C-alpha cells in the first residue's frame, strides 16, 4: 500500500482525471480523500493505492503530468501521520450498553447519537485502530458504517505545500505555433 499526497485545481473534472489515470495504470485505489485547502482554488488529495514503490512512482510522475495537478508526492517512506474517521452505528440494547461504553472508552471513541436500540460512534485514528474497534464491535451488531478514507501529513518541518507562484506565462508562446527548431 502506498500513500500519495496531491495538490490539485479545485474545479470540476479533476477528480475524474485523477481516477481515470489510476484506472489506466491498472492501479486500484484503496481510498481517496479530497478537501479544500486554505486556498479555495486548490484542493488536497490523499491517495492510498494498492501498488508497490515502482507503481507509486509511476502514479506520482503521471499525476504531475496532468495540467490540473500542481504537485504529487509519494510520502509512503516519509515520517507520516495518517488518520481515518469513521461513524459506526451499532446495536445497543440495555444489556449490552455498559459493555459497549467500556470499549468506547478504551478506543477513545465518542458517542454522538443515542437511540433506544442503537448508538452512533465517532472514532478517528489510524486505520488499524478503527479496524480494531470494528472487530470488537462486530459481535454487538454493526448496523451501518461510514469511513472517510485516510488523510495524511508528514511530520514536523517536512512541509508539503502547494506551489504558490502564479501560472508561469508561456515561455515561448509566440514561437509555439510557427515551425521552430
Amino acid at each position, binding site marked *: 500500500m502506498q500513500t500519495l499526497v496531491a495538490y490539485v485545481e479545485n474545479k470540476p473534472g479533476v477528480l475524474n482525471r485523477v481516477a481515470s489515470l489510476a484506472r*489506466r495504470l491498472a492501479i486500484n485505489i484503496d481510498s481517496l480523500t479530497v478537501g479544500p485547502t486554505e486556498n479555495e482554488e486548490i484542493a488536497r488529495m490523499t491517495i492510498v493505492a494498492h501498488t508497490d514503490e515502482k507503481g507509486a512512482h509511476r502514479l506520482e510522475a503521471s499525476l504531475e*503530468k*496532468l495540467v490540473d495537478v500542481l504537485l504529487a508526492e509519494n510520502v509512503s517512506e516519509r515520517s507520516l501521520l495518517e488518520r481515518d474517521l469513521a461513524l459506526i452505528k451499532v446495536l445497543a440494547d440495555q444489556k449490552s450498553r455498559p459493555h459497549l461504553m467500556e470499549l468506547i472508552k478504551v478506543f477513545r471513541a465518542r458517542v454522538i447519537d443515542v437511540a433506544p436500540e442503537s448508538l452512533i460512534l465517532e472514532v478517528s485514528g489510524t486505520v488499524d485502530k478503527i479496524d480494531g474497534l470494528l472487530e470488537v464491535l462486530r459481535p454487538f451488531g454493526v448496523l451501518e458504517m461510514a469511513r472517510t478514507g485516510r488523510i495524511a501529513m508528514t511530520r514536523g518541518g517536512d512541509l508539503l505545500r*502547494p506551489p504558490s507562484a502564479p*501560472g508561469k*506565462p*508561456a515561455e515561448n508562446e509566440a514561437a*509555439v*505555433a510557427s515551425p521552430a527548431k
Partner: protein
Amino acid sequence: MKLTGAEILCESLTKLGVRHIFGYPGGAILPVYDALGKSKLHHILVRHEQGATHMADGYARASGGVGVAMATSGPGATNVVTGIATAMLDSSPVVCITGQVSSKLLGSDAFQEIDITGITMPITKHNVVVSQAGDIARTLREAFVIASSGRPGPVLVDVTKDAQQASCDFNWGAAAPHLPPKRQRISYEQADFDRAVELLNSAKRPLILAGHGIMVSGAMRVFEQFVRAGNFPVAMTLLGIGCFPASDSLNLGMMGMHGEAWVNHAIQEADLLIAIGMRFDDRVTGDLRTYAKGARKIHIEIDRSEINKNVPVDCALVGDAREVVEQLLPLVEHRERGDWLGHIRELKGDSAVRDIQGLPDTGHLYAAHVINDLWKETRGEAIVVTDVGQHQMWEAQYYHHNQPRTLITSGGLGTMGFALPAAIGAKFAKPDADVWVVVGDGGFQMTMSELATIVQEKIKINIAIINNGYLGMVRQWQEFFYDKRYVATPLVAPDFAALANAFGIRGERITSRNEVTPTIRSARESSEPVLIDFRVEQEDSVYPMVPAGGSLHEMIRRPNNPLVETASTEL
C-alpha cells in the same frame, strides 16, 4: 472591440501563427465556419474527420509547430479519436477544436451531443470544454502552450455553440495563458550528472539509443557533436530516424523488432546504453528479462514517468534532451573504440550478404527494391510518410534518412490509414518538399477517400502503394506463428490506378523492377499528383524479426540466399 466567440476563435488562431486548419463542418461548429470564411485562415476540407487529425499531426511532425484540426460535435468528434490517440502516443502537438451543443443542452442527449472530453480524457495531454465566449482566446493560448511544451501531445478544445455565438470584448493582452502553478522539480542531482559523465568516459562498449525526443527538443546539432566527441555508435528508434544522418558511419540504423541484426546484437553486447529521448517501448526491447543485461544505462528523458518504467536505469537525467546533452558535451572524452566499432562492423558484414537489396533481377518485384529505388531516385531527400505494417519496416530499413522530420510514421499507436492524410498535412507544412506516401494496399483502403482532398486542394503528392494482396504484416505473423493459416488477411483491392483516375489523379501500375525507377522519375517530374500501384511479391516477409516478447538477440534472420550479392548502401 466586440466580437462573437467564433470570430474570437479565428482571430486567436491567426494570432497564434496558425495558417492551416484541417476540418469538416457541421451544425455545432457552423458559427466558427462562418467566421473562418471571413478570416485569412486556409481551411482544408477533409473527407473524414480522422483524416483531419492525421493531417494536423503530419503538419506538426513535418514543421515542428502545432497542427490544428476541427470537427463538429457528435459523430464529427468521435471520428477524431483515432487521430488524437495517434498524436498522443507519438508526442505530436495537435490542437483539435470540436463544436459542442449549446451549454443549456449539455447532458440532455441533444442531437449530435457526445461527451467528447470524457471520451478523449485518457488520449489527450489535456482537454477542456469552453462555454463562455470570453474564455475562448485564453483557452486556445493555453492549449497551444500545453500541446507544444515539455513532452508535446494533443489538446482538445470543445466549444459550445452558444459560446461561439455570444459576443464579448476581445482583448488579446488580457487573455494571456493562466495555467496552474506547477511544482518545478530539480531535473537531476549533481551526483547523477557526475555519474553519467563517469559512465560515458569509462565505457568500453557504449551505444546511444536515439529517439524522437532529440528531434522534438531540436537537439540534432549538439547531438551530432556529442556523438563525435565520444565516438559513440548510434542506434535509432523508428521515430528517431532522421535525427542523425543515416550516411554517418557511426549510425548503425534502426533497433528493435525489425532492427538489423548488427544493431540488436550491439545492444545486447554493449556495456553502456545512453538512451536519449526514447522510452524503451516493447517493440524496441523485446523480452525485458534478457534485455542488455551487461549494460549500465543512462536515460536522458523529459518525461519523469518514463524513468524506470520498462527498463531500470543506473542514471536518469530528467530534462530536455538538448539542454542535457549540451551540459554533457564538454565533459565527454574521445575514445578510439577500435575493438568495439570493429566488432560491430563484423556483425554487419554477415547481415549484408543476407540483404534482399542485392538480389539479382529475377523478374520478381520486392518491396525492398521499390523502397531502395525510391531512396536512390529521390537522393534520400524526400519526406516519406508511411502507413503501418511491412512497408513501414522496409521503409525504415531501406530508405536512408539524413534529415530530421523526413520520415513521418505512426509508431506508438501503429495506426493504419495514417499515411495519406498525414502526407497531406506534411505537404502544407513543407510545400516545396517532395512528399511521398508509402502505404500498403490495406491501410490505403482505410483512408483513400482523402485522394479527393488532394485534388480539391490541388497539391502535389506522390503515392507509392506497396500492393501484395495481403494484410502483409499480419500474414507474416500467421506464417511464422499460426502455421500459415491466413485468416482474414488475403485482401481484394480495387484497381488502384483506375481508382486514381476516377479521382482525377494519374495512376500507374508497376509489376517489374526495371519499371520502378523510370516511373518514380516521371512521377517526380510531373507537377500533378501521381499514384503508383507496385504489385510486389505476395508472401514476402520483413527480416530480421524478434518475435513479440522474444529476446533481442534471438532474431528470425533473413534467409541466406546463395544468389544474393553484397548489398550496396551507397547512393
